[in-house]
């Protein structure tokens, strides 16, 4: 298991290759990359606040749960905090498994839990000012799938 909470940028391709390197034991690798999205064309940047200590703990708990539920050879979570420009990767999840169904389900599960159960808060700065991103009911509802 790899869990990284960092302010530094990361290269999604390098992370994927490092995660997959030398894995003749697994057939399926799924990755998810979350990118700062400028939905309305007015976003200047995003800032992510987190709760040091609890963040790592919460993510490790979520990954442990995924590993107990699906047959995974490995799992990785990287999540950035601090100021992020539009188009920058915010976070990444990767799962490796013998079978694709496990790799897909575990990555999907990790994303749902990271959205609503890891202590991160997004704040957007647009041309009109700053505002905290509100949690979506659909994200909370997504947890009931598991």
């Amino acid at each position: 298991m790899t869990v990284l909470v960092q302010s530094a940028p990361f290269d999604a391709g390098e992370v994927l290759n490092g995660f997959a390197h030398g894995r003749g034991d697994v057939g399926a690798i799924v990755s998810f990359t979350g990118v700062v999205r400028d939905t309305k064309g007015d976003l200047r940047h995003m800032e992510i606040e987190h709760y040091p200590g609890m963040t790592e703990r919460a993510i490790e708990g979520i990954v442990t749960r995924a590993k107990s539920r699906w047959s995974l050879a490995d799992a990785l979570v990287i999540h950035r905090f601090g100021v992020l420009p539009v188009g920058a990767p915010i976070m990444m999840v990767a799962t490796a498994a013998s079978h694709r169904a496990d790799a897909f389900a575990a990555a999907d599960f990790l994303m749902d839990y990271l959205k609503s159960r890891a202590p991160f808060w997004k704040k957007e700065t647009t041309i009109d000012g700053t505002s905290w991103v509100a949690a979506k009911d659909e994200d909370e509802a997504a947890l009931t799938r598991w």
Partner: protein
Amino acid sequence: MNVMYFAWVRERIGLPQEEVETRAATVADLVAELSAREDRYAAAFADTSALRVALDQELSDFSAPLAGVREVAFFPPMTGG
């Protein structure tokens, strides 16, 4: 007890954390105590249904007892991912 605030809770209260001397039995009691202090606390805690609480870095709820807890954190629903 170390009390921490994140995101707009931190902004409303105006500080990221503070040491609080309290005999509050539950999280709800602590919230009532803090809200009685100053308007900025009352404003931040006006609607606790819009807030989450963690005790010693584990998600908990407002009815939870504070006995033995060293760190309480208040924040809005999380928006990771």
